[in-house]
């Protein structure tokens, strides 16, 4: 595995002769988010998991606020992973904000991607004239405050324990709330990049077959946003999962796997 592989903690599993499914985690966690889904998909597909730089076991030293200032910067990493692993015909599954990263990557290099699965996507979280994203600017500031108050006890000394011992994961797991731990500075920056992004205009440029997956109830990506994304991407399909919350891959893994697998295999 080369530089990018280590930088993004890329993990490849599953059938080497199967189609490639790349699973991208969103804001708030890391590739652990796919732990109920990835093993099932690995039976029929080659599964590529990774952590965005700044999350999980990625190389934290590679993170710079100016280097990861937009979703395009994250999309570039996705393309680099594809290039490094020489992937083509990728079925890209992006959860939450990563759905939009997938959109940006697929516009830039459509030939890399066979299909896009946008899992609870939102192209713009903040309300605008004639558009309801669900949040106001003040709400986002409130989230940043929540992040600050919950990371008060976060210690930079934790990072090496969790990130630096990939061969001894039990070291990290002894900690309370050990999953999805993020350096507060990085979390804050990623939250800004995520929730202040607006890529509504890019949706119409998607030329890859796309599946939009939403949940019946999701405060972060409400159904009208799902409908908006579906309407903007020509020829896209929309599936509504009987699940609540923003992480159906954890709360309703079976239906999530079914939605991804049936679309990916078509």
């Amino acid at each position: 595995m080369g530089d990018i592989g280590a930088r993004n903690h890329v993990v490849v599993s599953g059938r080497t002769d199967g189609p490639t499914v790349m699973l991208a985690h969103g804001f708030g966690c890391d590739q652990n988010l796919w732990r109920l889904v990835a093993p099932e998909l690995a039976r029929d597909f080659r599964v590529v998991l990774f952590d965005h730089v700044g999350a999980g076991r990625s190389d934290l030293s590679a993170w710079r606020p100016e280097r990861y200032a937009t979703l395009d910067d994250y999309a570039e990493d996705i393309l680099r992973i594809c290039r490094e692993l020489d992937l083509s015909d990728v079925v890209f599954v992006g959860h939450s904000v990563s759905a939009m990263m997938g959109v940006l990557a697929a516009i830039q290099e459509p030939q890399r991607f066979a299909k896009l699965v946008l899992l609870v996507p939102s192209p713009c979280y903040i309300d605008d004239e004639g558009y309801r994203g669900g949040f106001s600017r003040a709400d986002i500031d409130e989230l940043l405050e929540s992040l600050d108050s919950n990371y008060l006890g976060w210690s930079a000394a934790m990072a090496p324990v969790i990130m630096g011992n990939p061969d001894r994961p039990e070291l990290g797991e002894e900690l309370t709330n050990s999953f999805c731990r993020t350096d507060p500075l990085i979390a804050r920056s990623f939250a800004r990049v995520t929730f202040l992004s607006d890529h509504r205009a890019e949706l119409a440029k998607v030329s890859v077959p796309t599946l939009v997956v939403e949940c019946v109830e999701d405060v972060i990506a409400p159904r009208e946003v799902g409908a908006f994304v579906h309407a903007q991407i020509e020829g896209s399909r929309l599936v509504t999962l009987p699940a609540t919350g923003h992480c159906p891959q954890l709360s309703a893994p079976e239906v999530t796997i079914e939605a991804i697998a049936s679309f990916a295999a078509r």
Partner: protein
Amino acid sequence: MNAPGHGGRREVVVFSSLLEDSAEDLYENAPCGYLSTLLDGQIAKVNATLLGWLGYTREELVGRRAFSDLLTVGGRLYHETHFAPLLRLQGEVGGVALELRTADGSRLPVLVTSKVKSGADGRPQLIRTTIFDASDRRAYERELLRARQEAELDRERLQRLVRTLQHSLLPSSLPQVPGLRAAAHYHIASRDEVGGDFYDLFPLTSARWGFFLGDVCGKGAGAATVTSLIRYTLRAAAVYDSDPVTVLDTLNAALHQEYHGDDPRYCTAIFGILAPDGDGFSITLASGGHPPCLLLRADGTADYQPTPNGLLIGILPSATFTSRAIHLGPGDTLLLYTDGLTEARTGATGTPDGRFGDEALHAFATRLAPTTASAAVAALAGLLEGFGTGLDDDTAILALSVPSPGE
């Protein structure tokens, strides 16, 4: 109860447990909020304490609202992106700071701990949550957070000030001297303190230039004011009488006059004059307590150029300095440096205390020779960088060279 003795202890135990006789009452009126929700977040059970805090009736919440409905919007975002996934992944989440919205719209800062309850078949059934009022604690934490943010701002301001001050004490660029190449490097050990090293190269007449390099004792604001005094004294003294020994005498007198008694300030320095001479430059220099400069010759040799008897400058009312004349011919490079370079802790085996040392520097210079001012400075800057954390002091480097024919 009052009478100590036989059987008393037993009675106390029985009496106490009688007071706390109802698990139901303990649940309802516990000093914390209790909440049980279904896996999709719907509220299934809630205790009286929490209802009291929120100002809702049981009927308004049970079966009608989800836990995340009770949160502020920012808190809901946090809940969806962090809390809920974490709870699914590890079965419990502890001590998360959130804010609840009460019925009258006010906010209640709380600390939330949740645990998934599984049935006999091991499948998750519901989520139990305890909620503690954290108003006071949150106010305190906000103060801490604000103090930290202010401290970070102050540090940024300080570092900006230090950078500006540092730049004001060093030449922004070295002047062009016809027939001579000059290069310099400055390594600042700390971003929070002004370094005590200094150097300069400046014209005296159309055919004479002065240069100096030195090291003030200490660092920080105090050292910066001394550095400023030294710089201007050296420049002014050289205009008046450019003999290096006289210039250092003047500096010695100025420093000793300004700083004596309980706040002595002193420095080490090399001061030199250069003038065109044949195919190169003649250099006269004097040193006060400073490590000798190195001459890297065109023939590939390198040697220290000591100036004996040079005392620390500013420590005694009068000091004796001696001068030395050097001819800098084509292909020769004169290298001045401060002791941050030789005293860097490199773990070297050649020196008793593991510092880089004079011998290693001599060997390094010999390998470089013949060289040019810019190549020598680049090589030394690379060497310094390689020292990593072993380089704990400021380091200044100034190199002067005469180009070889055809260069």
